[in-house]
Every structure is written in C-alpha cells, then in structure tokens.
C-alpha cells in the first residue's frame, strides 16, 4: 500500500498537468506543436533516472524526436537483473522545442539474499529496520529537468564545441527505515549536472561527458550521504557510442560513484553492528560500467540491451547483470 500512497501524492500535480495539456492541445494546436523531425536515433534513449541520454548517464541532448520546431515525448520501461537485486524503472519525459526536457521516473528496486537474511533476523527480534524477511523493496521517485544551453551536437562537425546542457534531479526515496539502517543521512535530495555531447561523424562516434554534483549512494536507491553528513561532490560520467548504422549503436558507459557508506556497517535501530563481526554486513559502493547495444527500428521505438557491471552494492559484491530498456516515443 505504501506504493499506492506514494502515487496518490502526485495525482493532483498529474491532474493539473493533464488539464494544462488538454487546454494547450485542444483546438488543433497539437497539430502545430507536435514534432518528430529529429533524425532517427538522435533523440537518444532513457537513462535510469528518466532523463534523455544513455543507459545510466544523462546527455546534453533533449529527449524525444522534437526539433526546435515543436514538442515530443516518450515513455520508457527499464529492467535490470542483478544477482541480488532487480531494478524496474518506468517513466515519462517530454522535450520542448529541443530546449527543455522534463521527466518523471519511478524506480523500484527489489532485493534478495543478504537482505533476506538480515530481514529474517531483525524481524524475528522485532527491530524496525526497513528490511523485510523477503522481498524488501526500495521505491524512489525521480523528477528531472534539463535545459540545453548552447552548442549543436550533430551538425557542427566543423568545430569541436559540444552541445551543452545543465539539468537536475529531485529524488524521493520512500524506504526511509532501510536508509536509516544503512546509515544514509537523507532520503530526499537533489542532484545537478552539466553534460556535453558531440557526434563525430567522420569516426561514427558519439562522445558524452557529464559532471554530476551529488551526494547519492547508488544513484539514491540507498539514500544520500552517510554518517558523516550529506556532502555533495562532483562525479564524472562518460558515454561512448559507436554508430553501426542509422538505427543501431553500440557503446560503453562509466559512472563514478561515491563512498559515503564505504566501510560502514548497518545500524539496527541504534545498534551499529560491527561489520567484521558479521563479515557480510560491511557496505561498499563501486563505480558503474556498462556495455550496450541500442536498436532504433523506428522513431516510435527503441530497444537497448546492456551488460551492467555495478560491482559492490551495499552489502553484496559482484553485481553484474543484464539490462533491457524499451522506449516508446510519440
């Protein structure tokens, strides 16, 4: 029921948005506003925070197929299957005149193994840790906005100036009890980023570099900050994509992660369990890597498949697994 309450909280704003949309698009205005004039694949895909970009990194491109002549939007569903977790990300985004992007995504992370053991143990002795004996779930709402500042990623092949955008996310993690157990300092926080994207046609390659100013642990899925507070830092992210043909790209990504909870144990309702006592209860966080292939069979659909190498996630090591993302544009 917790999830439903979470959704209800945003219903009024959704309704308001719909009302505005209805007012805007009635009377044939939609026909003038709608635009799908970008060249195939140049809208990118949807990253796990919901912004337009690669798989895990927001790019300077504005999501969807709208050019500066109109607006376009997309919905996405992403599933990541890791040994001890599964991430389901579902969201929607809109690109306005290729200048502004607004996005919303709901991330649901289900956990297993070590979390089940801790949950079983703590629920037996009646400790409120936010970890259930089975199927502990972390839900996070992510609101995003991005503004393209300058530059032309695609057509300015005669200079090295990239397309640059600035953006931000506001993330609300709903499993506060679990975040307390993991010793994160906050459950809600914002992040800001600056992204630079450029396509180098002579070598069929797209390069994106993003700097994200954040205090997130595992993108916020395990909260923000740690026992020492909520100190934001600048973390780099890189995407490289090689264009195989006009509808297929392959590539790799890297995302720097922080160490707010590095070496920390878990706090079981005030009792900080020594990590070395129980061995596997020490937390670690690794940088993320992925290798992907993205297919763009039409402007209405993209399919991205990736192998994600996320390393240590909180209590569990070696979290590598498959990622699939579907995006429908309209």
């Amino acid at each position: 029921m917790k999830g439903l309450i979470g959704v209800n909280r945003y219903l009024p704003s959704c309704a308001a948005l719909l009302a505005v949309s209805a007012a805007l698009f009635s009377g044939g205005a939609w026909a003038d506003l709608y635009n799908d004039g970008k060249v195939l694949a140049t809208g990118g895909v949807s990253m796990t925070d919901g912004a337009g970009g690669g798989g895990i990194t927001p790019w300077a491109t504005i999501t969807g197929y709208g050019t500066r002549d109109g607006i376009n939007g997309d919905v996405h569903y992403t599933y990541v299957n890791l040994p001890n977790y599964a991430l389901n990300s579902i969201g929607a985004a809109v690109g306005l005149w290729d200048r502004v992007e607004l996005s919303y995504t709901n991330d649901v992370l289900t956990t297993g193994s070590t979390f089940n053991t801790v949950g079983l143990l703590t629920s037996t002795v009646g400790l409120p840790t936010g970890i259930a004996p089975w199927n502990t779930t972390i839900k996070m709402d992510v609101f995003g906005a991005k503004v393209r500042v300058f530059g032309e990623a695609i057509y300015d092949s005669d200079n090295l100036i990239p397309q640059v955008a600035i953006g931000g996310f506001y993330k609300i993690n709903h499993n506060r009890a679990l975040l307390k157990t993991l010793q994160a300092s906050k459950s809600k926080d914002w992040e800001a980023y600056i992204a630079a994207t450029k396509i180098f046609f002579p070598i069929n390659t797209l390069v994106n570099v993003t700097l994200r100013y954040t205090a997130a642990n595992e993108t916020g899925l395990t909260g923000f900050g740690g026992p020492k507070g909520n100190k934001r830092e600048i973390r780099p992210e890189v995407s490289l994509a090689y264009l195989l043909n006009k509808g297929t790209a392959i590539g790799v990504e890297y995302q720097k992660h922080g160490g707010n909870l590095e070496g920390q144990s878990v706090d079981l309702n005030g009792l900080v369990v020594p990590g070395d006592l129980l061995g596997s209860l020490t937390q670690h966080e690794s940088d993320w890597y992925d290798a992907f292939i993205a297919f763009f069979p039409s402007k209405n659909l993209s399919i991205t498949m990736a192998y994600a190498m996320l390393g240590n996630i909180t209590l569990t090591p070696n979290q590598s697994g498959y990622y699939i993302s579907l995006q429908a544009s309209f």
Partner: protein
Amino acid sequence: MKSLKVITQIAASAMLLFAAAQPALAAQDPTGSKQTTYPGLSSDALEKFGGEAGVHNWVQALFYYILLDNRINKIFVEHGNIERQIALNTQLEQMVLGGAVQYQGASMSAAHADLGITLTQFNAVVEAAYNACERVNTPYSVCNQLIAALAPFERSIVTR
C-alpha cells in the same frame, strides 16, 4: 551554501564557453575546397564514394527520395530545376569530400535565404541522404564522411 557556489561556478563556466563559441557559429558556405571537420575526413572519402560517378549516383538517389517525401518535395519542385540541382550537388559533394572540382552554384545562404527552411525539413533531407547511401550501397561509415562534410551547411540553410 557551498552547493550554490558550485552551481554558480558551473553556470559561469557554461556562459564563458558559450561566449567563446560565438565566433564559430557563423553561417557556413562552400569554401571552394574540402570541408574542414573534426576529426578530418578520410583522405580516400571521395574514392570510397565511387568518385564522380558514385557521387552522381548518390545525388540522383537523394533527389529520388526527396521528391518522394511529401514533407519536403514541394520546396524542391517549386524552387529550381531538379536537373540543375542534381548537377550542382554532384559538384558540391565532390568538392567537400576533397575532389578537385569547383562548385559553380550560389552560396548556401544565398540559395536558401528566402525559403524559410526549418530544421525539421533539413533533417528530412538528411534522412533522404542516408536512404540514398543505402540505395547505392555506400557503407554507413563512408556515408558519414559526406554527412560530416555537409552538416555545417545546416547553419546557412536553416533560417527559421
């Protein structure tokens, strides 16, 4: 408020970059020689395109797709003779790929000044360009040499 300071710094650097970028954003017109791109076009780009005959085939395929595209065909039919456009484009494309050919047409800005071309329409021509490469069996990576060579003209052609 350290975070605010960092954001201010990021915004300031973005604006500085923007200012630095301004001179490079001027309209791009054919310079009478191979197009300068970053990284540079491969030295055998024109050869891989099939030389003059290959470029001519590609331009014919390009106009085949343009004239079939209901989003843009009217612009091409109403403004100029198609045969002449094919001949001039065959010159232009060879020249920007590094061929010893002189383009004898009007500058890109002059030729498109009154047409009010949108980016959406320009992109439709880019889609036709890729379709034309497929039609004449020019590999995608070779096609991108030409795309890179023509891309900067977007700043001269798109006026809306």
